[in-house]
């Protein structure tokens, strides 16, 4: 298939998937939640308060990022894992894949469409905060905002890829959703706040703890989000020395942005390979 024709098909399929997503109930709930979080943060007066040095828009964005870290991955996983296995179960693939479309454009178009559909409400809520700040005459930390957008996109893409892999491996929607939940729980447990902190207390070698923290895309996101507004990582404690000594400020931000993208790409690529080799409907 020609590259141009393949790209046209990919765009068509991405548009079709966006159209499907915009009409799905989960998308409405999802958008309301992220919009609601932002409204809730405004209403609760977070922008006016000061905690541990964060104030105004910085405080609001930090809180938004931390909440997003907890919600975005599970939303990505739960909605994405239904896409391949759910469409297969419902007979969507039987009909749509009887059309003359390549499997590559189909899969990657679906992935691109889903990414845009899921990332837009998150980005939209963040931009609302920025516009609000501009209207109030607040100084906008543009570099931090751009890095936040990059980190959010990276996190969304990472879990989208993991979700597509789980979806192609699963034989039913129920199994896929169970696996998605377990994956999210596993990664959540290995945050510094939870099991990782406990393991360090129990004498886990620091190198192992750091390795786990670096390998966990959720932890990478969390640490980078803190780093943007706390360049010395005072909040993180002694681990900060290891991170800053080995990576440096910019180096870690690059790692935290690029690594989840690579994880997502590897998972999505593996999912595509499995999907291509197997039965489509």
């Amino acid at each position, binding site marked *: 298939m020609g590259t141009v024709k393949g790209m046209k098909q990919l765009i068509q399929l991405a548009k079709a998937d966006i159209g499907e997503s915009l009409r799905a109930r989960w998308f409405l709930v999802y958008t309301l939640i992220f919009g609601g979080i932002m409204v809730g943060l405004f209403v609760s007066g977070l922008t006016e308060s000061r905690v541990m040095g964060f104030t105004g828009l910085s405080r609001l964005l930090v809180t938004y990022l931390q909440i997003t870290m907890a919600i975005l991955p599970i939303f990505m996983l739960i909605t994405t894992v239904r896409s391949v296995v759910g469409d297969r179960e419902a007979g969507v693939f039987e009909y749509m894949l*009887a059309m003359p479309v390549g499997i590559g454009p189909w899969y990657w178009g679906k992935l691109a469409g889903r990414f845009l559909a899921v990332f837009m409400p998150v980005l939209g809520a963040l931009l609302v905060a920025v516009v609000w700040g501009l209207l109030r005459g607040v100084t906008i930390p543009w570099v931090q905002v751009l890095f936040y957008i990059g980190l959010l996109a990276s996190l969304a893409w990472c879990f989208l890829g993991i979700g597509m892999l789980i979806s192609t491996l699963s034989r039913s929607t129920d199994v896929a959703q169970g696996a998605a939940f377990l994956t999210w729980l596993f990664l959540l447990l290995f945050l510094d706040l939870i099991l990782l902190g406990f393991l360090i207390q129990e004498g886990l070698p620091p190198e192992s703890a750091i390795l786990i923290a670096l390998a966990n895309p959720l932890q990478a996101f969390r640490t980078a989000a803190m780093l943007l507004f706390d360049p010395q990582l005072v909040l993180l404690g002694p681990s900060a020395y290891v991170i800053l000594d080995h990576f440096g400020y910019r180096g870690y931000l690059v790692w935290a942005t690029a690594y989840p993208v690579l994880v997502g790409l590897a998972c999505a690529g593996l999912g595509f390979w499995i999907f291509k080799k197997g039965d*489509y409907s």
Partner: protein
Amino acid sequence: MNIRCNNLSKNFRRTEVLKGADLVLDPGDRIALVGSNGAGKTTLIRCLLGEYTHGGQVLVDGIDPRADRTGALGRIGFVPQLPPPLKLTVGRLLGFTAEVCGSDIGRMADISGRLGLDIDTVRRRPFAKLSGGEKQKLMIGIALGRETELLIMDEPAANLDPTARHVFFGLLAELKGGHSMIISSHRLDEVAPLVNRVVEMDRGRIVLDDHVDDRIDLAAVLRCTVAISRPTQAFAEAIGAWGFRNDAGECRWQGMIAGPDRLRFLGMLSRYAALVENLEMTEGSEPDAPAKTP
């Protein structure tokens, strides 16, 4: 369009669903693919469409549909038995199909319209929100509106209302002689008038491959008169569903039936064989009121 299936086999884990099926389809072949549930009809169709991995070989005009989907499926129209729960609007689905298949939206809308589905009134509605009949009409409109050489249809007329069913037969009749079809059904009487060949499957094998008389005019209608010995409620309801009207004290019924539906009509009448005193069927021209089928 030529289709070649050589020693086609398919397993789902330990279950062997296709066991070395051989099938050749030449241009102009209209095949009724019949068999009971689990015979392997749907699996065979999905292999033809390149949706399943399989043993043996499938070639569509010499192309493996798994290897070159665009090349192999570009001239194949497909109507599934169960409409997929697409949330896309009707307009978006038509636009998507037109882009991907290189077809004309107007032509697909026109055929849907002839089947009784006005695209302008449903264009903004999600496909999943249409009624079963509307979905079927749209999928037939899309399949027939494309530039195809082979139509693969799974119980295509099952959800159609009487008028649409008659129009559907007429649309099939309009297809050119070189057009091929595979119509899957578990009942031969449903599809026999539409085909010139019957392929029967049983437990993953092709057990019958025979040609049938295809002189039935798909667009024809039959004027029909049925006389019964005494009026009964059950018969009145059954024949009333075909749009027949009675005179002479509910013992004489008259109506029109679509030519390809004659076997189904006789099947219905056979249930009341003890009542039927006289039956006349005459091929006629297009009636003022369309022939009806329940």
